[in-house]
């Protein structure tokens, strides 16, 4: 199987008046064709920043993005120039966002927007591009696609708009699709449809999907592997079934315990405290102040992520031996 995304040692630091503040620290990711990797973590854990860094969507005026290696498909993009990145975006990697209502241009018809995407990468022009746009809308199961082409985003529902966003993202048949909380702004019944659609398109095109979410139920149903992030670091990684059944890192265990399910009734477990801010990162393991299993060593040193056969965790005192 070919690798569609390979990230090694990704570090993103924001430039602030107080100096460089690391938002993503030494993250490795690898996605193969046809595979879905879920990136999980609570708000502020650096999931979205990781995704934006991969496509270099954060301006160099605001952040410094470094990596030992950053490959999309077979292209090394570690030191890519802006024109090189533009050729990759949309063509090799597509991305969809949380809120489809604001991600579409309000004054252009959806057909016009898809045609723009096709023309940017010279996939098709003029009449051919419009036909292609209609075919794309049919592919993302928008009913009556021929007429919907001339509609504006405010005339469509949230679910339909998200389908249009997906059509835009897959317009050039990318190898990688980054879905940044694609269903957060949608209601539950539409969520399932959208996720199923992504799955089906993934099988058709054979693209890898990086699914960013904080919903573990979504992870369980849609992902092959999962990477858990906390305070800008990857703290655990493995196959979905392994990670959700036998978490190694106390943070993952905490997240799982805080997920509501039908068997437990009563108070939901919570992880005490908050994610530390970028400026007040503790010296050792960033989770140590909130961790029930913390040892003395945890507040002094940062554990490196280790393990075997794709089952990794960054903890001095894991719940089960790695």
């Amino acid at each position, binding site marked *: 199987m070919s690798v569609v995304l390979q990230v090694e040692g990704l570090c993103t630091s924001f430039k602030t008046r107080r100096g460089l503040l690391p938002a993503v620290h030494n993250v490795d990711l690898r996605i193969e064709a046809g595979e879905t990797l879920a990136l999980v973590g609570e708000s502020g854990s650096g999931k979205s920043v990781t995704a934006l860094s991969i*496509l270099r*969507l954060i301006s160099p*005026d605001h952040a410094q993005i470094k990596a030992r290696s950053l490959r999309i498909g077979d292209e090394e993009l570690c030191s890519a120039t802006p024109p090189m990145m*533009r*050729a*990759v*975006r*949309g*063509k090799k990697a*597509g*991305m969809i*966002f949380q*809120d489809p209502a*604001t*991600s*579409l*241009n*309000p*004054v*252009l018809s959806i057909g016009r927007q898809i045609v*723009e*995407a096709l023309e*940017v*990468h010279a996939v098709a022009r003029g009449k051919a591009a419009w036909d292609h746009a209609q075919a794309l809308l049919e592919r993302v199961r928008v009913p009556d696609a021929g007429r919907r082409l*001339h*509609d*504006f985003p*405010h*005339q469509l529902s949230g679910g339909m708009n998200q389908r249009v*966003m997906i059509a*835009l*993202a897959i*317009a050039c048949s990318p190898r990688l699709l980054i879905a940044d909380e694609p269903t957060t702004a949608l209601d539950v019944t539409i969520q399932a449809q959208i996720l199923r659609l992504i799955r089906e398109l993934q099988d058709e095109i054979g693209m890898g999907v990086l699914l960013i979410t904080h919903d573990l139920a979504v992870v369980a149903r849609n992902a092959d592997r999962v990477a858990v992030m906390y305070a800008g670091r990857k703290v655990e990684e493995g196959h979905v079934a392994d990670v959700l059944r036998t978490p190694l890192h106390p943070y993952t265990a905490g997240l799982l315990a805080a997920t509501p399910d039908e068997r437990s009734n009563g108070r939901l477990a919570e992880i005490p405290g908050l994610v530390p801010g970028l400026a007040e990162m503790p010296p050792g393991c960033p989770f140590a102040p909130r961790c029930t299993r913390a040892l003395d060593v945890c507040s002094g040193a940062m554990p490196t992520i280790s393990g075997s056969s794709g089952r990794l965790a960054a903890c001095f005192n894991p719940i089960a031996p790695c």
Partner: protein
Amino acid sequence: MTNSFFYRLACRPAALLGMLVLLAMALGAILAPWLYPGDPMSMVGGVLLRPGEDPTFPFGTDQMGRDLAAEVFHGARITLLVGIVSAFAATGFGVLVGAIAGFYGDMVDGVLMRLTELFQTIPGFLLAIVFIVILGSSIGVIVFSIAAISWPAIARMVRAEFLSLKSRDFVQSSRVIGMSDARIILTQMLPNCMAPIVVTSSITVATAILTEAGLSFLGLGDPNLVSWGSVIGVGRESLRTSAYLTLIPGLAILLTVLAINLLGEGLNDAMNTRLRVA
């Protein structure tokens, strides 16, 4: 889409009225050489004939025996031409400066906005007079100087629009598609501020007509051409005895400016995509 746009525009009585008045003015300007052949500044009849006194001169004649109707029709050509061309030039330059400043921000924005403020702090009419005094009063210079005092307002408005559009999600998603900066500005962001640009530039046409009239009234207009302002300037000398010399071209200016404003209002509503019927 074009049909529905004009349809929506025509549905507004005020806009329709404005459009009709403007069409009538334009028609009069276009037909002037056939309705009143020859030089409108040549003396053709008796001095200071009142309107209706001689059927050949429906608007009467001025102190020099020039046909006022010929002057008004020929003047419409110059007045409308100056108004439209200078508003176009001002809009083009203003949009360019405003879009670049708003999109790139920081240093670029700082430099361009200081330049804009430099123009804005000098009273516009005085600046136009300075340009004309230095460069001479030909029609080209008048158009240039009116454009030069009109662009800062458009630049500031476009910049403000771009500053708020820049942080919208759809601009980010255009980047994700792989669009270049120029393409994002032209195909994504400009269509989003077309409504205020069209409305402001239509008002700029009206202001330009008034400025041109003011300049001609002061005798700074092109001496070889008739415009409504210059006719008023000539009529001013006998304002108390023959008020029709200033009233008729003044009424023409009033009607035109009013029509443009009505049309601008109508355009503002008609260009709002949200009001489109599904």
